[in-house]
């Protein structure tokens, strides 16, 4: 899967905006939005929020978790836990990137948030690499991956799955008596 497609999915997440225009309710195929009134917060999907922001029609309210204090707690928990700690949003990385790139003026302490999220990401991806390593070396057939986000899975998907397939093919051809030896 392309990272941009993961981002596409993240753009469906809802975010609160404060519009500076008024508009009636919109009846989209994917659900109703609005009504929009100047100064009144309203929830919209990220794709719309970013579009309105680019047209300078709204201010984006950062999600609750996008806050230095909360992120520091999460970072600490993440480095203490051996497994993947629960994460406030399944798209935390993509949302941080998109909101900070397009609306950093609406997010207090944007730079600190960027660094913290990057740290959390690095810790988690390091854990993911470690567990992938032990998954392979112990020849496991099943792994539980709670709290892992789509973007994190995506960083290792192709490499991990292809290597597992290769190893599987090598192994099944090695084991005597397996009639699985194939023609390709």
């Amino acid at each position, binding site marked *: *899967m392309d990272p941009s*497609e993961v981002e*596409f*999915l993240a*753009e469906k997440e809802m975010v609160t905006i404060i519009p500076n*225009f008024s*508009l*009636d309710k*919109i009846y*989209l*195929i*994917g*659900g109703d*939005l609005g009504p929009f009134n100047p100064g009144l917060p309203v929830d919209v999907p990220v*794709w*719309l929020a970013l*579009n309105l922001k680019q047209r300078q029609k709204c201010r984006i309210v950062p999600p609750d978790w996008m806050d230095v204090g909360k992120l520091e707690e999460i970072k600490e928990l993440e480095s203490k836990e051996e497994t993947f700690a629960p994460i406030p949003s399944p798209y935390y990385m993509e949302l941080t990137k998109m909101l900070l790139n397009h609306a950093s003026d609406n997010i207090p302490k944007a730079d600190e948030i960027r660094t913290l999220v990057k740290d959390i990401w690095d810790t988690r991806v390091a854990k993911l690499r470690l567990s992938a390593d032990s*998954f392979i070396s112990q*020849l*496991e*057939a*099943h*792994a*539980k*991956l*709670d*709290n*892992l986000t*789509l973007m994190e*899975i995506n960083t290792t*998907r192709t490499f*991990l*799955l292809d290597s*597992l*397939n290769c190893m*599987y093919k090598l*192994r099944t051809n090695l*084991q005597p008596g397996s009639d699985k030896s*194939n*023609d*390709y």
Partner: protein
Amino acid sequence: MSDALSEASDLSGDDSQDVMTPTELIAKLEEAWLNEKFSPELLKNKSEIVECVMEQLTHMEENLQRVRKGDVKASIHRMEIDRIRFVLSSYLRSRLQKIEKFFPHVLEKEKSRAEGDPSFLSPEEFAFAKEYMANTETYLKAVALRHMPPNLQTIDMLKAVPEPCLDSFVFLRVKERQENILVEPETDEQREYVVDLEEGSQHLMRYRTIAPLVASGAVQLI
């Protein structure tokens, strides 16, 4: 409650027994898209979803024709249409890619399907697969096979084209709790064991073990 009902009646697909709101319909399309993207084999076609979504899109586009240019609402609707259209075409494209990759096996499966069973392919996909098969054969004959000695002039497509590898690992999220899923051992020394798949949990395991659950919609590939 009355809201849900009035919304549901918007959906013009009267032929489907389970009434869906357009919102649910889009969610279903996205599920199908991700499943198709990540499963190693071609899944059952979801032509009822595709048709309903197409209907919604045309309907919306017709409405937009009547709106004057520069309207904010219209531009938002257009953006949504573009997003849905992207998912729809990506879904159909990944099916076509799989058909191109596994065409003899896809057609073989279609042939061996029992009378009355729903087809894996939509009529259009079936036509595409047949044509692709015929064209490939003609091509191979024209370029190479007819220059071969007579005993080497036939080719068995089923053997020549690799089968989908159902033993691939896939990532999945559980939507409905499942008990006692048998995990086969990787080596002869290991023993098989069972796992319970809790709702909302995520796993990495072989596609073969959970293929029926993907088909029934109990798990979502991610």
